[in-house]
């Protein structure tokens, strides 16, 4: 069984209260950092830990922190991205709902490291009940001297505010989030300048995912080196995985990076296999924006080695036969699911969520949705499949933010691996309306 560094106490009764959380060792990282470490020493530990951003991009957190500009007399901010909206991802909600003080503790320790004195948690508006939990926990932290002036007598002051979004996937993109936090439409900004130089209200800002900030707590408590010992290669530490789709036991799991995908899907401690005794058809391992894998590439790579839950192993084979760990939104399809229908569904999602700022994304996501609708509803042509590939190439890389890529890549991957199923929808439209295609065969080894 994996070690749990984040959610070990999640189910302890009363753990959402300051008192119980403190009894279980809570706020130790704040004491250690503020009383015995300099801000730079905290940054150093995070660098040593190898922690990579848990929101999806996987960029090293310590390095991101070290880019923060520190001009004299200019305020800096830490902003927590709690706008969890990537389809298939629901881990941050679990963490914040069960362990609000873990996030607050991480915010204090991280803000101290960055020299931020006003920090913000931007949470998606639909999680209003979680916002209330956080508000209550923040009030408790103030009452117990963990927030406000002169925290623990260290001379360090910090104010922390939690504020809601209003329903927009794009606000998970860090510059769109900052626009939204300034009270504007969530249109991503051109970069550079990066938020580390000009972020919230033009001040140097670090934006980190909920889970990344929570991970700073065990990193400071146990040391960056100890954290880096968990995991494999450049995938260090533990990761929260949100498992959804046709599984016996979907839910949020904390795994040590390096666990095999086989064990995660079928193991007794994890998802316990495919629901209703069915077979695995496909898996999207890192949230809806990453490439889908057909069943024969889920537990094994194209080279025949075991596929592991790491940034590297899930990406093994590149876009030809691999995918990405992304946000850890692990979506599992059983043999009765229709890939064309699902691809259309996600295309509709991206068309709905495009902010409309860049033409290739605004128009392209809409076209893809329409073409996929035709294919799914029996009026598509074989040319439509090549048309999708064309549109894809015109979106990819031509937009301000990665939403365009996120919309394009899953469609490209679905066609790459499931072309037969798409063609079947064109050639046998009547039949495609009455039954699903079933499992595809693995291509014969050359």
């Amino acid at each position: 069984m994996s070690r749990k560094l984040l959610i070990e106490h999640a189910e302890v009764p009363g753990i959402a209260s300051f008192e119980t959380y403190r009894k279980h060792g809570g706020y130790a990282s704040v004491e250690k950092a503020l009383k015995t470490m300099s801000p730079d020493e905290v940054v150093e530990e995070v660098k040593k830990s190898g922690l990579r951003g848990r929101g999806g991009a996987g960029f090293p957190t310590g390095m991101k922190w070290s880019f923060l500009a520190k001009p004299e007399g200019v305020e800096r901010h830490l902003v927590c991205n709690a706008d969890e909206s990537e389809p298939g991802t629901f881990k941050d909600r679990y963490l914040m709902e069960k362990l609000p003080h873990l996030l607050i503790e991480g915010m204090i320790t991280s803000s101290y490291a960055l020299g931020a004195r006003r920090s913000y948690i931007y949470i998606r508006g639909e999680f209003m009940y979680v916002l209330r939990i956080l508000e209550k926990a923040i009030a408790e932290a103030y009452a117990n001297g963990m927030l406000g002036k002169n925290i623990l007598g260290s001379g360090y002051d910090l104010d922390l505010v939690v504020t809601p979004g209003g329903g927009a996937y794009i606000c998970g993109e860090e510059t769109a989030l900052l626009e939204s936090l300034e009270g504007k439409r969530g249109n991503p900004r051109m970069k550079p300048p990066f938020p580390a130089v000009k972020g919230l209200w033009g001040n140097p800002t670090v934006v980190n995912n909920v889970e990344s900030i929570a991970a700073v707590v065990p990193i400071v408590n146990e040391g960056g080196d100890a954290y880096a010992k968990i995991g494999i290669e450049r995938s260090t530490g533990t990761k929260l995985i949100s498992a959804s789709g046709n599984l016996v036991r979907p839910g949020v799991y904390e795994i040590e990076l390096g666990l095999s995908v086989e064990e995660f899907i079928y193991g007794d401690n994890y998802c316990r296999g495919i629901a209703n005794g069915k077979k695995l058809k496909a898996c999207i391992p890192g949230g809806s924006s990453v490439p889908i894998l057909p069943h024969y590439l889920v537990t094994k790579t194209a080279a025949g080695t075991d596929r592991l839950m790491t940034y590297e192993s899930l990406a093994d084979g590149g876009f030809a036969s691999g995918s990405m760990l992304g946000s850890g939104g692990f979506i599992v399809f059983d043999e009765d699911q229709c890939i064309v229908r699902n691809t259309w569904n996600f295309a509709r999602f991206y068309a709905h969520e495009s902010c409309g700022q860049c033409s290739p994304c605004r128009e392209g996501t809409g076209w893809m949705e329409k073409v996929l609708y035709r294919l799914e509803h029996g009026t598509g042509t074989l040319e439509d499949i090549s048309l999708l590939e064309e549109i894809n190439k015109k979106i990819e890389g031509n937009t301000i933010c990665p939403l365009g890529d996120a919309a394009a890549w899953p469609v490209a991957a679905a066609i790459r691996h499931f072309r037969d199923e798409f063609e079947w929808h064109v050639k046998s439209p009547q039949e495609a309306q009455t039954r699903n295609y079933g499992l595809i065969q693995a291509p014969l080894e050359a």
Partner: protein
Amino acid sequence: MKADHPQAVNEAPIDFSAHTMAEINRVIGLFPEGKQKSAILSILHLVQDEFGWVSVGAMNRVAQILDIQPIEVYEVATFYTMFHLDPVGKNVLEVCRTGPCQLVGSDDLISYIEEKLDIKVGETTKDGMFTLKTVECLGACGYGPMLMCKYQFYERLNKEKVNEMLDAMREASKS
């Protein structure tokens, strides 16, 4: 009148309750001096909590409170999908229709509610009790199919649970 109407700025601002105003002042106070606009999404949520939806008159009042142009409120209110810009029923059922929920039966859930309430997605029941909407991913993928109503999540839904939920909502909305 809609926010994109040329005369929208002339619509009379409406007043908010004392409770809403107190909450509005609290959320404005969370941000530094001069950055009160950051509270706009919180304020629009509060307005919607009071009236059920966000009218042009309400937006014009928000503009006055924040000391910004009405267009700055319209452009925000029309961008974020949680804000209802038309009157809605007492209970707005927002069913997640995105991939992970679809894999576990959200299409059937939507059809069942349509049949049960005798309305289509986007419509309101004649008695004004329910509005049915579909929304994109609500971050509850492991507990689908699901819907949100009044910020509350109803998860792992089946016909029986939907029946119970609708009855409870009818009961609660009677008063």
